[in-house]
């Protein structure tokens, strides 16, 4: 499990307007590029001090590449990060609050206790 890396993807994409659009339009390509070029960046440090060991598990990569936010919830990605980024990408395609209520409906099968989000 690499919940931390899932969260790092959501965190770094959400705060970059260009990456938000890129992930919306080309999720699989963006995830592949990000894992190859970005996943190991130590934030705030230059490239020569990148980490060497971070990679997604297959289920995590597929969930991100599929924009599959219910699966991200099941995998223990931080729900606030997922919600914020997916609102940024898809709220525009719905009536006001429509995406948020659909999001809840698609997670309706989840019961307490929810997946652990500790990293």
């Amino acid at each position, binding site marked *: 499990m690499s919940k*931390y890396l899932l*969260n*790092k993807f959501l*965190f770094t994409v*959400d*705060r970059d*307007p260009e990456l938000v659009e890129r992930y919306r339009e080309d999720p699989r390509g963006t995830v592949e590029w990000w894992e190859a070029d970005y996943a190991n960046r*130590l*934030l705030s440090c230059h490239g020569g001090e990148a980490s060497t060991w971070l990679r997604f598990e297959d289920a995590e990569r597929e969930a991100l590449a599929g924009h599959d936010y219910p699966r991200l*919830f099941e995998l223990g990605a*931080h*729900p*606030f*990060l*997922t*919600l*914020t980024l997916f*609102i*940024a990408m898809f709220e525009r395609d719905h009536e006001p*609050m429509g995406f*948020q*209520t659909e*999001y*809840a*409906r698609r*997670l*309706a*099968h*989840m019961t*307490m*206790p*929810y997946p652990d*989000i*500790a*990293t």
Partner: protein
Amino acid sequence: MAELVAVIASTHHPFYYRASTATGEDRPPFADEWVRKVEAFRETLTKARPDVLVMVGSDHFHQLWLDNMPQFLVGKAPFYDANWYNEEREFGLPRMFFTGQEDLSAYILREGLDAGFDLAFSNELRIDHSITCPIITLRPQNDLPIVPVYTNIFAPPLPQPKRFVQLGRTIRELVESWPADKRVAVIGTGHLSLELGGPRQFGPHGPDPEFDRKAVEWISSGDIEGCLSEVTLDSLHLPGNATHGFMDFMLMMGVAGEGAKADYVDTYDLFHTMEAYFTWYPNGGVA
């Protein structure tokens, strides 16, 4: 010595700014009553005539991140920029700019460390809506220097609820022992029951109205003991997956003190969450 002139605990609903400034067809039906309640709440701070605001909130993965996550952090900077791109994008919040009260920041850090809290600090902190929302609601002229205090209610492992209460007590002691002739208000924001990114989000009410009822009772009556007897890190998952933000209300109960009845209490049942507003005047009234 400084005087603690008001203790204020509030929710920090990021949609208030947009709702309260919307006009015509864009103005939601609940906006007018919400504005009325917020303006009445604002008066409770205005009456206390503060010189300095200690602002307790929580970073929402803006500047604080999982590669270097503090539990409690005090800002110590001459100025603070505020609000982030994703808060402008989602909530329509404006960019803001604050002056810092560095002497009180330094005092809280030094004395807080010596009192048993290993506080982190930041000399360049961009603050987010947990602190800007109460400025927008309570002090929109934004004319007072601040000391931001961030708590981790967001990224487990979290401190225990009792630790939030203890920090609140310590903040009060430090404010009251600060050798400055200043009137200080401590303002903290959190949540009642709240779900974000889960199946119970954005319902017609908060996800757990019964928890909200009990929480308002604990806060308004200053029942710290009762609250601590029922609230644990595990139990806070039940009312909604973002309800750990309630621990910032517990911190403010610590500032107000055991058994301290709030002098002002108001709530507003909105879709998605219950708004809640509390003010205490520690010295028995507004001088």
